[in-house]
Structure formats: C-alpha cells, structure tokens
C-alpha cells in the first residue's frame, strides 16, 4: 500500500491547504522588492514634489517630514494642468494613448485570435515570429524607423509610388501615435493570446448550434469570455504609453506633439524646476491608479461570475 489508505497521515496537498502562511511567504521577496524599489522611491518623489528648491543650484531639496510639506507648487502645477500650458499636454497625451490603444486592439486582436483559433500546430512558431522583432531594443527599433521615415527614407520613397508624399517626421501626431502602436503592440498580443488560447471553443460551436451566426457568436460568446484578457492587455500597454517620452523624442521632437512624459523628462533633467517633474509623476500615477482600479474591479467581477 503506497498512497491514500493511511488515514493517520496528512498528504502534502493537505499540508499546503492548511498552511496559509506558506502562501504568504511566497509574497515575502516581492514585498521586500516593492518596498525597496517602489514604496520608498515613491515616497522620495513625494518628498521632492512637496519639498523646496535649492536657491543656488535650483535642485530639488526633498522635505522628508510630511508634516512640513509645502503644497504651493502643487497648486501651481494643478492649475497649469487644469487651465494653463500643461492642459494641452495632458489632453494630448490622453488622446494619443486612446488612439494608439484603439489601433493596438484593432490590429492585435485579430492576430491573437488567429493564433489561438486557427494557427493549429504552427501556433507557437508564428507567435515567436511575431515577437522576435521586438527582442531588438526599443530605442534601436525607433531609430530604424527614423531612417525609414526620413525624407529620402525607404518607406517614404515606397509610399510615393502610391502618390502619398507625406513628411512623416515633421512633428506629426500620426507618426507619434503609430510609433506608440508599433512599440507596445506585442505587449497586447501576448496576454490576449494567452486568454484566447484557454477559451473553450466548444462554447462557440454550441452557440452556432443554437442558431447564432458567426458575428453573434463572436459578440455574445468570444468577446465576453476574452474581456479579462482585453482589459489586462489594455492596462499593460496603457501604463507605459502614458509615461512614454522617447517615442516623441525620436519620431517628432516637436512641441506640438509633446506628451506628459516629455514634460516630466524636461522638468527633471533639464530645468531648474524638478519639483514640477515630481508633481507630474504623482499626478500621472494617481490617474493611472484609477485605470488600475477599473482593471481590478473588472477581474473581480469576472472571477465572481466564474465562481457562480
């Protein structure tokens, strides 16, 4: 007798179930990591944002005591975001990210769907082929596009064959948005593929058997079942897009396409008002926290539905 009938002994699975501390222990390294590399730096950013400026060097002087935080500069930055020069940057960032995300979904969802549903045995090979170009460093890929999109670039000359003579690098919002799409789309395809690949496709067949046409089956079955993946993928690409600054730096460099990340970069690295950079980081983080809350709420609702 090897297993099962020894009622006096506890199996390893039972031990795990009865050891909640063990699960908590798994989170310990991550917790330490987050405290050291997220919570503390984030507190430092807040201390800079609500601190003072060195009168000589115009560097940030962090105020480590929260009781002494000064909110004067914060009011100015918020006013600027609401009604001043930074308002346009904030709105433009939201519009660019929204457009880029929409394009990512339009392009990425069919790819992920095809890979999960129709690629068969070639599924992994095709997935790798799609992802491989993105192993190249983001900066290098964008610089390559700068060459392709320049006035005498290969892509620009190719488009002229079709009568499209467009100066892609003249500070164009289209170029910046497409750059964001190109840069972040693999991070959308991967989680979407993971979600779609786990779908029980027999439910689609059942829907069809019950009279749904292919569009109805997609709308009423596939789309709701892939909602968690869509939201996760959206959040995954939205977060870095909102903080992105180098796509604009490389493909535009025009004030008319400045995103909030460019202003953060400027204030922190090239101005004598680093406080403003820290304040914009905090504001952006709060905004993204709202997106993250939506994601958590969505996943919680989904898990409840599954449990029922």
């Amino acid at each position, binding site marked *: 007798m090897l297993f099962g009938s020894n009622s006096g002994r506890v199996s390893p699975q039972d031990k795990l179930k009865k050891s*909640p501390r063990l*699960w*908590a222990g798994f*989170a310990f390294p*991550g917790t330490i990591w*987050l405290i050291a*590399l*997220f919570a503390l*730096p*984030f507190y*430092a*950013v807040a201390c*800079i944002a609500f601190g003072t*400026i060195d*009168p*000589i*060097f*115009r*560097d*940030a002087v*962090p105020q480590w005591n929260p009781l002494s935080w000064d909110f004067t500069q914060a009011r100015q930055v918020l006013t600027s975001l609401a009604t001043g*020069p*930074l308002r*346009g*940057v904030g709105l433009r960032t939201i519009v660019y990210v929204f457009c880029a995300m929409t394009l990512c979904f339009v392009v990425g969802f069919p790819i992920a769907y095809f890979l999960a549903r129709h690629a068969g045995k070639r599924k992994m090979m095709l997935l790798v082929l799609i992802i491989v170009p993105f192993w190249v460093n983001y900066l290098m890929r964008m610089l390559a596009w700068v060459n392709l999109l*320049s*006035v005498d670039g290969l892509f620009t000359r190719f488009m002229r064959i079709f009568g499209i003579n467009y*100066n892609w*690098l*003249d*500070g164009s919002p289209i170029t910046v948005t497409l750059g964001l799409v190109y840069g972040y789309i693999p991070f959308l395809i991967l989680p979407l593929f993971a979600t779609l690949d786990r779908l029980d496709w027999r439910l689609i067949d059942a829907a069809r058997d019950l009279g749904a046409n292919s569009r109805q089956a997609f709308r009423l079955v596939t789309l709701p079942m892939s909602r968690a993946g869509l939201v*996760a993928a959206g*959040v*995954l690409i939205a*977060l870095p897009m909102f*903080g992105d600054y180098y796509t604009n730096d490389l493909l*535009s*460099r*025009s*004030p*008319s396409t*400045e995103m909030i*990340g460019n*202003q953060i970069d400027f204030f*922190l*690295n*090239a*101005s*004598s*008002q*680093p406080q403003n950079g*820290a304040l914009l*980081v905090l504001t952006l*983080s709060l905004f*993204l926290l709202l997106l*993250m809350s939506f*994601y*958590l709420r969505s*996943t919680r609702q989904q*898990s409840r539905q599954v449990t029922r």
Partner: protein
Amino acid sequence: MGRRDFLRNLAITSGAITFGGSLLAACGGSTETESGGLSIGTPQNPIKLPVTTDAIADGLPNESGTLEILNWADYQNPDSIAIFEEKFGCKVVTSIYDTEEAAIAKLRNGTFKPDLILGMTDTGLAKLVAADLLQPLNKSYIPNFGNVISGLQNPYYDLESQYTVPYFIYGNGIGYRTDRIDKNAFAGNGYDTLWDPQFSGKLALLDSYRDTLAMAMFRAGNFDANTTDAAVITKAGDDLVALREATNPKVDILAYQELPAGNRDINFTWSGDLFTALQYLPEGVKPDVLGFWYPDKTIAKNDFMCVTKAAKAPVLAHQLINFLSDTDNALLNREYVGYQPALESITVDLLISSGTIPESLVDALVTPEKYDAGIAQVSLEPQADALWLEQWTRFTAG
C-alpha cells in the same frame, strides 16, 4: 493571503513599477548648497573666481590607466583621442551630456565622475565653482595656453583663466538649405524667416531655453541676452508661441545631422554645427547646399575645458588640454567636430585657404570682429532663471 490575492497584489505593483525609471530618476541625490551665492562674471564686471584648493604641483608624472572625459556628443575627434592615447599610454573614456543643467546635477550627485569636462560654457561655470567641483589649473602643464586667442586668455567669466582654457568659439544664427531658401530671404530682419509659415514642418530651433528665448528677444529689438525684465521675457515667450503656431518647429540640437540629410530647410543653431554638418552630407550632395545667416547682433561665445576637483588623473587631464590647444592637433580635432578652435593661429583666412569651407558657409566663421561684437550670455540669478523657464515651458508644452 490567498493565491489570488497574491497575484492581484503583484498585478497592481507590476503596473506601478512601469514608473520605476522616472521615480528613481527623480530620487537623484541633491544637497542644499552651503555656498553663499553664485559668482557670475560679465563683460562689464569681470570676475576672479574663488579658489578653495591648490593646483597640482609642478613636474608630476603622468598617471597611467584611464582618463575620463565628460563631453557633448560628437565634440571630439576620435582620431585625435587615439593619438593622445598612444602618446601618453593611457585609455580615454568619454561620457556624454546633452544639457549643462543635467551635467551639473549629475556631477553634484556623483553620477558623473570625470577627470576633465569639455564644452561647458560660462552659464554653467558659476554653478560648477559654487559647487566646488573644479580644481585650479597648473599652467606649467599647458605651455600651449599661449596659443589661445589673446582676448580669451583673461576672460571676463574667469579672470586669469584659473579654471578654464577655451575650446571652441561660435555664434548663434540660422542654418539653412541653399537649394531651398535664397539668401535674400534674410534681408531685413532675418529672424522673421523663422516665423514664416511656408517652412512649417521643415524648421527647427535649438533645445536651449537661453539661446532660443534670446533669439526671440533679438528679433523684437531687445538685445540684452541676460535680461531680468519680466515683460521682455514674457514677450519672447509670446513670440515663440506664435512661431510654434505658425511653423510647428522641432526643438533639438540635431541641426548638424538633419540639415544635411534634407529633413529640414532651416534651423536656428550654433554656427559650428554647419561645419559639423559637412560630414553628414549624403553621398553626391555638394557642400554648398548648406548656408548660414550670421546676424549682426547675436550671441557669440566660447566653451572651455576644465579639470574636476575629484580628478583621479589630473596630470593627464592637463596634458589633454595642452594637446588640444596645439595648433596641429586642434586642426585635426576640427576636421571632425567642425567648430572653430579658440586658437589665435587658426584664423578665418587659414580655414578658408584650407579649402574645407564652402563659399556658402564663410559667413558661419567667427571673425575676431564678430566675436567682439557678440552679445555675452552669462549665468542668471535663480529668480530670473525661473522666469525664463516659465516662458520656455509655455512654448514647449505645445
């Protein structure tokens, strides 16, 4: 904590961590200065900078190992550096900076620890000295100091050249493509060309708030490049916003690449960039496609070389300053960099006779007369600096 909670918490933080870079960058160390203020020299009030330490002693042997340099991108000839390395048996490692403000911040918090800084200007010198980051030079290691343009051997920003040796000279003006813009376009107030909507999308300005706001002031007839007058600064900001609306300009320091590549027609930039641009011309494109309009009244200035107080190889740093101040070495360095060395022997006539300067770029050369007539740009007091930055933000925020 259940598995789901664990994963949920991980998801929250993985999202938040995307900001890690910005957050960590924001945490760059900074300490409040104990200095009483900035020592700012002006042509009207030259200054002898305070010295807090002795220069290195005479006759020390060259260090072996590595010499670390902090410099702008493409601002030294790799061939010149290779010759120096061979001659002095050392290795030269170069770090790059793209704004003086960022470089000074990183020097102060220890991110950069170079032996020698190249290309810094007097707008940054006051802060470098206030932060006690420089050591005085021992001229016995720099016999070629005598080659420096006589008017710059005792500059207003550093009387007796205690800390600095001039590197290159240049003036601010407008680079353009002669195959797309006629030079007569600059007749009258040449600055107006930058506000011309016909160049929309093909125009760029310097990513330097001091230079570009000053340019807007000059266009309006205000020739104080260091003004603290809020009305003048605001007017310059208004004019730049109008320029932005009219021409959708780019803001960078890439004129030397983008003009020769044909990606833009016109660029407010430093004169030396046009000579650097000659090396970036595509094959088959003639050098005379590049032109430069040098305004009658504009900023003319020089940058310089200086040794850091914490230099690990101060003798080698002095040797490289001396090496680059030699006429032949400076000419070789200029072949790559393009800018005019600040040496008496390298005259405009010499450069023209070398055959490397196309006729269309003769105006970009800084003659002694142009340099003397140039408007000086000095460090600003913090309150005035904040006014300039406020207007710059209005412009760059789009």
